[in-house]
């Protein structure tokens, strides 16, 4: 059960990472370094 919850959280975070990396920056004035694999 715990593994499934962690799996769901990780999948959701990875999906959000893909969405967030599509934007040049977020609302704040700091840009977190985008991982190489997500750069496009």
């Amino acid at each position, binding site marked *: 059960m715990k593994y499934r919850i962690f799996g769901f959280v*990780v999948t959701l975070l990875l999906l959000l990472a893909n969405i967030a990396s599509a934007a*040049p920056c*977020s*609302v704040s*004035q700091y*840009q*977190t370094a985008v991982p190489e694999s*997500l750069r496009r």
Partner: protein
Amino acid sequence: MSYLPFSRRCAVFLATRTGLDHEKEIILAYIIEVLVINLLNICLALLLGYSLGVLPGTVACLVTAFFFRHTAGGAHSNSPWRCGLVTMTVFPIIALLGSYLSYLRQPYIDLIAAASVLICLLKLLQSAPVDSPAAPIISPLRRKKLKIASLMVLLAVVLVLAFLRQSPWPYAQQVQLCLALTVLWISLMLSSYGHRILAWIDGIAIKKERAGRR
């Protein structure tokens, strides 16, 4: 890639529990940091806006900045904490300024809104999207799409401004000015002056840190 300790710790924990490789662990650290920093900044800006009595204006500023920053990009600070300070203070201050200026007559508000939109249009056509070394835009097609998206956001802002002009909502003029002033702030962040301001803010903190070490 360097991430803050809390995001790295969370990423290692989740990656260990689910058996992910190192590359996915880095992606997790990245998104945890993005979510935490942005949520913290937004919550603190809203809290400050609420305590200053300009919550509707602060929300309007944050929503406008969110869409513009996601499409047009802009200048960045080197530190998440200095950036937090800028983000949490700038938008409530813009909202406060908007609330003071809302006592102006409608033609003056229209003039401020029109000038802001025109300046932003010029800056978007000239330099959007502005990327950073931490998140470079590699594909020319993506660059083109982001430019078009940023112009669409500006068009949406113009439509909202026109709608608010006719609206009987008591906060309409205040929100109208907040949108116009946020558009000006976004234009500044797209320009070299915006980059210089944030570099100057970064510089102040570095000098203080050095002085503290001595």
